[in-house]
């Protein structure tokens, strides 16, 4: 079976969950090969991590020479590995950077590109959710090596050991790829909560919080959830932009999405409509968010959420 390349998404060698999801998908399409672009010292740990989730091979590319540059060098690395491995497909996480790498790679390999897949099956046939989740589209790449970016939570990670054979790959990076320099990088402070795009549960607050996010934060903590926010809440300065969910923020598709004090504008829906279960708390029974919900409470979030949090904590004992 042909190799399927999976670009490892990691922070300083710590592999992020979506990578394991991609490996599970890769197994449906062929033999999973992980591509780790990172520090030499972190390679062994990362290789071990991806092997646990089925990577048969791990290409290791030392990033000393390229980590100071944005996107372009990674596309060159993948191009060169693809030329050597002739993979059946290349899978990348659907982050802003992941999509940009994929876009440049598609031009280089003269291959079709599908972004934001919420499912990928043998073929590969992809499923995407478009127009703020109002339509589902099935698509295929018809030319070259299918390059597919996949949204977090599109598949369940599968813990099955792969050989994890490490192959050090010496990529040649052109000067042209070194034109956009990363002058400074400030890693995101860990909130102690799950990462927004990876979380199984997300609790979001909007303008209806009136700036008091305690009920949101506390409910999230009782459920082990990530915290999100509407643009109105972000624009008011109540939460940083990295919390924003929607068209110009993050896209999430957790098992459970709880929207409190959020009206449900189309731009917000664009970021959460593929969530499996949707719950809303809003004091206006006419709020459009109620059109989406599996369960809704018409009420004041400032009383409903704290009381629910208390009950949840009690049940969890």
């Amino acid at each position, binding site marked *: 079976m042909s190799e399927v390349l999976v670009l490892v998404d990691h*922070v300083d060698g710590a592999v*992020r969950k979506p990578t394991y999801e991609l490996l599970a998908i890769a197994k449906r399409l062929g033999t999973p090969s992980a591509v780790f672009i990172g520090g030499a010292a972190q390679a062994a740990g990362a290789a071990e991590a991806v092997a646990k989730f089925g990577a048969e091979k791990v290409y290791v590319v030392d990033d000393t020479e390229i980590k100071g540059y*944005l*996107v372009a060098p990674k596309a060159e690395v993948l191009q060169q590995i693809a030329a050597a491995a002739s993979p059946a497909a290349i899978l990348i996480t659907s*982050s*802003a*950077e992941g*999509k940009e790498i994929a*876009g*440049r790679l*598609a*031009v280089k390999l003269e*291959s*079709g*590109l599908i972004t934001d897949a919420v499912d990928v099956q043998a073929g590969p*046939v992809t499923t995407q959710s478009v*127009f703020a989740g*109002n*339509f*589902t*589209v*099935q698509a*295929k790449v018809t*030319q*070259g090596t299918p390059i597919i970016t996949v949204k977090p939570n599109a598949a369940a990670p599968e813990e099955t050991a792969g050989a994890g054979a490490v192959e050090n790959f010496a990529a040649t990076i052109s000067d*042209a790829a070194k*034109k*956009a*320099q*990363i*002058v400074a*990088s*400030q890693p*995101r402070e860990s909130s102690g909560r799950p990462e927004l795009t990876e979380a199984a549960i997300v609790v979001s607050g909007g303008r209806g919080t009136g700036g008091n996010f305690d009920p949101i934060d506390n409910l999230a903590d009782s*459920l082990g959830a990530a915290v999100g926010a509407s643009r109105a809440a972000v624009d008011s300065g109540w939460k940083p932009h990295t919390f924003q969910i929607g*068209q*110009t923020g993050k896209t999430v598709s957790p*098992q*459970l999405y709880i929207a409190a004090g959020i009206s449900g504008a*189309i731009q917000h829906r664009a970021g959460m409509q593929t969530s499996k*279960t949707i*719950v809303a708390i809003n004091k206006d*029974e006419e709020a459009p968010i*109620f059109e*989406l*919900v*599996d*369960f809704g*409470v*018409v009420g*004041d979030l400032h*009383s*409903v*959420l704290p*009381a*629910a949090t208390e*009950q*949840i904590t009690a*049940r*969890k004992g």
Partner: protein
Amino acid sequence: MNIVVCVKYVPDSTADQAFEADNTVDRVGVPGLLSELDEYAVEQALQLKEKNSDPDSVTVTALSVGPEGAADAIRKALQMGADAGAHVVDDAVAGSDALATSKVLAAAINKIGSVDVVVCGMASTDGGMSVVPAMLAERLDLPQVTFASVIESQDNQFRIKRDGDTATEIIGAVTPLVLSVTDQTGEARYPSFKGIMAAKKKPLESYALSDLGVDAGQVGLSAAWTAVESTEARPPRTAGTIVTDEDGSGATALTEFLASKKFI
């Protein structure tokens, strides 16, 4: 200095969106407009001009690849203050994917010539992939400084702030470059009455693919490297349960619901 701002004409996202029988986006039956996110790109292009020591030496050209109606999107950019418009309109373009669109945009940018800054929006509002700016950078062999939330420039030096998934980064590059901007860069201006009047006299050039040296066989639906096999309107969500909170009943019902779904 030459600035090209790429503006897309998109179906109004507040109207009902639909697909054609060939699974392409219906761009005729649904009213169109300048993609809201590209207004931020126009705004930043205009600010680059205004901040230049000699604004009159800077030309901002609004470029769009799209059907006849796309001229409206260009006109809006002209009304906001862009100096000239360029419209690639050719029946062969219909149904192009991002790869083909970026190819046509790149050819048009080369045609305009000696461009210093290409400004794009962060995504098109119609199922945007957020890939065209990176593809343009690849095709034009220019540095990409993309997803900017803050832009600083001095002469040919650019620095942007970019909120990545795991880090906030400062990216630096020198012109010529491709820049894409987010809605965090600040509100876009409304066309003034004066701007609307002035726009009528501004040049708006139309190009066919042949003018750009792009082979019609390389673009459009038939040449797309991906194929949509089927589209399906999402079945309306089965109406959820909605309860009204009375004296704490809402919290109890919510907790029961979450427990019944095994979230607790």
